[in-house]
């Protein structure tokens, strides 16, 4: 097959029907552009919403759960060991919330190649005192720098910086809390711990995570301040938060750490299964819409090529009579279709990128996300690869059937039919 010749014939056919060709191309362009825009926007949105939870949640959390002892004394007793024992009214055992030997566990975790980083944390319920009212809340004692590295808390700070917590006696409170208690940065807040210790702390910042339930009760202080507040020793840590490189490994690692360190563990997937579902469904919807657009564009190409073949019957007949085989004719129309697909597809990518950029600068202010000013867009090159691949597949299939039809045109019928 003489590709150059076949190509030049295809181009000439196209030129003689320029308007229709352009319309067919525009169909593809529109489909691809919309697909890219939609998917980029949806994924941007997904990332944002997932980030709300994922960034705030460790991949694996090590803690001590309050639960009854697994081995009740009667099961250990030599005499009744092999009996079936029924025990009623078991109460959970208080082993203390503190993780035993936390420091060495952290050291050991940091050696693990799969682990990105480890952050210790103290969580304790507290009361915030405002005049005569007491508001219950949670105080998180954190290692400021590591916490910022793992959970980018600064992204959620409305006022102040998380690093300010390194000052003595400082605290960062949730936006809901500050609204309720009419407190602002620089004010002093009084805190009572469950054991009755009272402390006054200076507010150095206000944080807004975007989930009202959390913003209404949460507060952050440094690890040492939390230990002081609770009157606990230096090694008192209630949670070890682990971020790993490959999030899919979380369930396996959680199980491994549970056995290795003899603590309770919970993995990201278990805590946030509903978010996974939401993300998947949103992606499916955006892909479905994009693919439907492309299929519609494919039908456009199919129609226009069919019409073109109908109009060009004479030309096809003469090409065949002068020695072009059915295969050559097929390729003429395949090339026509592929040229429309490639040009339309590439233009679609360009327009998709432009539209994504436009969406990217549209203001999007929401109380839930203080640091987000415009609509989120994800510029993953994969979307562009999928887009162009799908454009090519669609136009290939849309072109194949008319092309096969053209290749089967019987020149005798056309020439005699005149």
């Amino acid at each position, binding site marked *: 097959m*003489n590709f150059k010749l076949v190509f030049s014939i295809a181009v*000439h056919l196209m030129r003689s029907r320029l308007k229709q060709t352009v319309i067919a191309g525009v169909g593809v362009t529109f489909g691809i552009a919309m697909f890219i825009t939609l998917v980029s926007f949806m994924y941007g949105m997904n990332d944002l919403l997932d980030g709300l939870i994922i960034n705030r949640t460790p991949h694996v959390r090590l803690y001590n759960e309050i639960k009854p002892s697994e081995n009740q004394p009667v099961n250990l007793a030599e005499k009744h060991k092999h009996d079936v024992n029924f025990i009623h009214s078991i109460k959970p055992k208080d082993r203390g919330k503190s993780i035993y030997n936390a420091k060495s566990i952290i050291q050991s975790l940091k050696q693990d190649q799969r682990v990105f980083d480890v952050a210790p944390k103290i969580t304790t319920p507290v009361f915030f005192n405002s005049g005569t009212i007491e508001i219950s809340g949670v105080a998180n004692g954190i290692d400021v720098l590591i916490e910022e590295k793992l959970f980018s808390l600064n992204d959620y700070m409305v006022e102040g910086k998380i690093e300010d917590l390194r000052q003595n006696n400082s605290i960062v409170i949730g936006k809901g809390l500050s609204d309720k208690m009419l407190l602002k940065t620089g004010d002093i807040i009084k805190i009572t711990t469950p054991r009755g210790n009272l402390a006054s702390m200076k507010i150095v910042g206000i944080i807004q995570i975007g989930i009202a339930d959390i913003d209404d009760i949460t507060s952050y202080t440094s690890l040492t301040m939390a230990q002081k507040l609770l009157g606990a020793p230096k090694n008192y840590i209630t949670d070890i938060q682990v971020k790993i490189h490959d999030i899919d490994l979380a369930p396996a690692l959680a199980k491994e750490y549970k056995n290795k360190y003899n603590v309770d563990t919970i993995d990201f997937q278990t805590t946030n299964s509903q978010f996974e579902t939401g993300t998947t469904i949103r992606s499916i919807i955006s892909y479905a819409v994009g693919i439907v657009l492309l299929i519609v564009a494919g039908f456009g190409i199919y129609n226009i090529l069919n019409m073109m073949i109908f109009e060009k019957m004479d030309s096809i007949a003469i090409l065949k009579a002068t020695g072009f085989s059915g295969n050559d004719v097929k390729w003429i129309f395949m090339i026509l279709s592929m040229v429309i697909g490639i040009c339309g597809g590439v233009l679609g990518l360009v327009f998709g990128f432009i539209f994504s950029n436009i969406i990217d600068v549209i203001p999007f202010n929401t109380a839930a996300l203080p640091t987000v000013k415009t609509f989120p867009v994800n510029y993953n090159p994969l979307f562009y690869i999928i887009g162009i691949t799908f454009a090519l597949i669609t136009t290939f299939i849309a072109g194949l059937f008319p092309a096969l039809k053209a290749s089967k045109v*019987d020149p005798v019928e056309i020439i005699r039919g005149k």
Partner: protein
Amino acid sequence: MSNIVLETKKLTKYFNDPLRMQVLKEIDLQVDHGEFVSIVGKSGCGKSTLLYLLSTMDTDYEGQIYLDEELITGKTDKELAQMRNESIGFVFQFHYLLNEFNVLRNVMLPGLKLGKLSEEEIEQNAIEHLRTLDMHEHALKMPNQLSGGQKQRVAIARALINKPLIIMGDEPTGNLDKKNSDIVFDIFNQLTKEHNQTLLIVTHDPDFANRTHRIITMEDGKILS
């Protein structure tokens, strides 16, 4: 080497639609090299059908066709296309030029398809052929800017581009006035005389037929003489 360019043996053809009907009845035919043959006959006698069988475009028949001593019956679509391209030139009643290409390109297309010569050589040949047909001034025009007679001359130039063994014509003058018919006939005549070109022309124009070397008369799917 034998002198026979085209030969058929017991060529039989049926039309199946709407009724099974025999259009060609065991036709035996020979065309020698350099002959100028015309096929005449009444409408519906099967002369065009015969031509399309000989042209290899219609493959639904019984019997055998030999082109240049080579059996072409049963060859694949691709091989037949190749043979049409290389060995057979066509001139139709309705000129059938490609409207998307200019005259020169139309003439060059079969040559480009054959691909034996470079594009420049083919262009040179095409211009040469157009010149002998007195059409070289119109080389860069589009087909729709030409008259019927001019288009037919372009079609002849196209038929000649690959130096075919045989040129077949299906009523090449059927759509032309007397003056243009004469021009076309003169061209054909000149081709046989000067270039020893074999021609097989279906016509219903007795004037045209009478001036050819051999007349094959057909009736009811049979050759009378």
